[in-house]
């Protein structure tokens, strides 16, 4: 059992290191990475199954009892995130095989990618607040490099903003952890949950909560801290954009949810109200940003912000139903957002541009690409019976349940504008006749793997809709766990390592 929780972290590390050893042999790196991501997916699915059937799993790294050692915990939320990561990773690896350019492959793309996944998994699985910081740094530095790899001007300019603002967030995060330790004397999150619950000065806990909110808020790209995201996400190669846009931003949201469901519960009226309204404003500003864009990936990038607002809003509602909806929404969004970026890569492959004004005619020439795009785009906009609808449905229901009408109205308005901008992409890139002067390339080799990845995720958007019932049962489990920390704490603090 205990190896199961470690593997999602260890496996990418080993594969990544092996790829560095095989620095000159790109083919070997490809095979290693592909094999690694297949195993990762298998492990993550088994883990999810285990958590679903046996409840929260925890393992003490190094066999040091909690709260002294570092605990790895897989509750439903974590396990779902890891499984999602598994799927997306495999898809992106396959897609990369077809789309990544040779120089980047030869200069460390695969090792970096693996380490990125390692960091993401670590962040999802750790039960220790400082360890979370470390995994954040792991995924950040890998993302820095992936973002800048290639050194094109736009990449560098975007990367500077991305790096700077994320490092600021890290400095805040570290400070917050330091203060937390100083006052509460522990780093284990389950332990901290108990300690903060009985803290002598709840006001100080609230202050600390706000500091965490800012730190994770920057990393998660909420209003008004999101600037780095739209500035950078559209600059690297599309596979990188996809993993960033799909997966990476959600880690910040994950952390936000984790600490605000486990640690900072002593002044929910204040903290979660801020979160709620910030979520609402985030989704509105994000979607308005998207409306203003005429570049495929920029538009998608702004939508990331908007949908993060949705997730944060769910946290702000903070009911079991809302949390279940949030989890469902996050998983859905990872698949769908990743896929939209992947589709943008196909259109780029064909017409050499991401500019919607220069694109066109894709529907007539490549109807299947059009259909695949639609599945994801409509799902993103929350059109039934695709995955996005159900996330939206649950969140809206949760919001109505606690009569947050204004926020719900904003959420619904945002989903309309999302639909609006998705149809903009559709109308411009797919429906509109190809403008004069835009060149067309033969898609060439590599289109197979690219489409393979896209089909997988598009099918998942449908499957998540059709099978929303059973999947939502899992999400509900996650929602219950997130709104009632007792089982989490028990799983962490009671469990001794060993098997």
């Amino acid at each position, binding site marked *: 059992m205990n190896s199961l929780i470690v593997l999602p972290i260890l496996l990418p590390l080993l594969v990544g290191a092996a790829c560095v050893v095989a*620095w000159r042999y790109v083919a070997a790196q490809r095979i290693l990475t592909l094999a690694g991501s297949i195993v990762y997916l298998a492990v993550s699915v088994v883990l999810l199954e285990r958590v679903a059937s046996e409840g929260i799993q925890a393992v*003490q790294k190094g066999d040091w009892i909690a709260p002294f050692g570092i605990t790895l915990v897989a509750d439903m939320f974590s396990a779902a995130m890891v499984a999602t990561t598994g799927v997306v990773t495999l898809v992106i690896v396959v897609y990369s095989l077809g789309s990544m350019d040779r120089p980047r492959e030869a200069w460390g793309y695969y090792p970096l990618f693996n380490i990125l996944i390692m960091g993401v998994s670590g962040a999802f699985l750790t039960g220790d607040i400082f360890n979370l910081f470390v995994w954040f740094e792991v995924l950040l530095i890998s993302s820095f490099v992936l973002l800048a790899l290639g050194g094109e001007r736009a990449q560098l300019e975007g990367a500077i903003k991305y790096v700077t603002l994320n490092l600021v967030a890290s400095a805040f995060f570290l400070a917050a952890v330091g203060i937390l330790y100083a006052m509460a004397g522990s780093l284990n999150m389950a332990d901290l949950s108990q300690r903060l619950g009985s803290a002598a000065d709840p006001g100080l806990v609230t202050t600390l909560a706000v500091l965490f909110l800012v730190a994770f808020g920057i990393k998660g790209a909420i209003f008004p801290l999101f600037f780095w995201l739209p500035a950078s996400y559209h600059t690297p190669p599309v596979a990188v954009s996809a993993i960033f846009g799909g997966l990476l931003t959600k880690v910040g949201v994950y952390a936000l949810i984790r600490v605000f469901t486990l640690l900072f519960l002593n002044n929910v009226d204040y903290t979660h109200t801020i979160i709620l309204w910030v979520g609402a404003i985030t989704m509105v500003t994000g979607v308005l940003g998207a409306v203003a864009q005429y570049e495929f990936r920029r538009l998608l990038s702004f939508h990331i912000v908007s949908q993060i607002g949705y997730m944060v809003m769910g946290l702000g509602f903070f009911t079991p139903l809302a949390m279940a909806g949030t989890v469902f929404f996050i998983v859905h969004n990872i698949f769908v957002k990743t896929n939209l970026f992947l589709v943008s890569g196909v259109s780029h492959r064909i017409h050499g541009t991401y500019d919607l004004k220069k694109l066109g005619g894709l529907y007539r020439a490549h109807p299947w690409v059009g259909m695949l795009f639609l599945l994801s785009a409509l799902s993103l906009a929350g059109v039934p019976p695709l995955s996005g609808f159900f996330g939206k449905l649950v969140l809206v229901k949760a919001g109505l349940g606690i009569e947050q009408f204004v926020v719900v109205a904003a959420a619904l308005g945002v989903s309309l504008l999302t639909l609006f901008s998705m149809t903009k992409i559709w109308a411009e890139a797919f429906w509109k006749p190809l403008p004069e002067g835009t060149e067309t390339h033969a898609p060439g080799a590599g289109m197979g793997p690219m489409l393979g990845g896209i089909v997988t995720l598009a099918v998942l958007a449908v499957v998540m809709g059709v099978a929303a019932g059973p999947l939502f049962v899992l999400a509900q489990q996650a929602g219950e766990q997130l709104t009632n920390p007792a089982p989490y704490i028990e799983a962490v603090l009671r469990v001794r390592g060993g098997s």
Partner: protein
Amino acid sequence: MNSLILRTASRFLLILLFQFSIFLLLRGHNDPGGGFVGGLVLAAALTLYAIAYDVRSMRRFLPCRAQTIIAWGLLAAAVSGVFSMFKGQPFMTGQWTHVYIFGVDLHLGTPLLFDIGVYLTVVGVVLIVIISLAEEVEEDD
């Protein structure tokens, strides 16, 4: 434009500091030191050498590419934690053993392997950074 005095001194210092770094690495578990500090000292010594001579001369000391050192360091650190998993214990549970070589009782454990991994990684990283940058600058000399 290089200084004869500096060169001569740095040759001597390299040997001295290499030894010192290993000393720091090995005793780190019981006294201040350890993989980080040891690795940084060696890296500093090599950096000094690179400054006194040039990067190309410094690279002659490396058995392989710097990134390979990094990779082996990472692997060593990661693998040190895997042993316990074969015994059914959680990842990174310390395994200790006594080894008798030439009548000396060596107390060896996976944390030491881990520290060696750290040491190698630190050395590799500092070197790769220095090499990249120094060559970039030397290009223009």
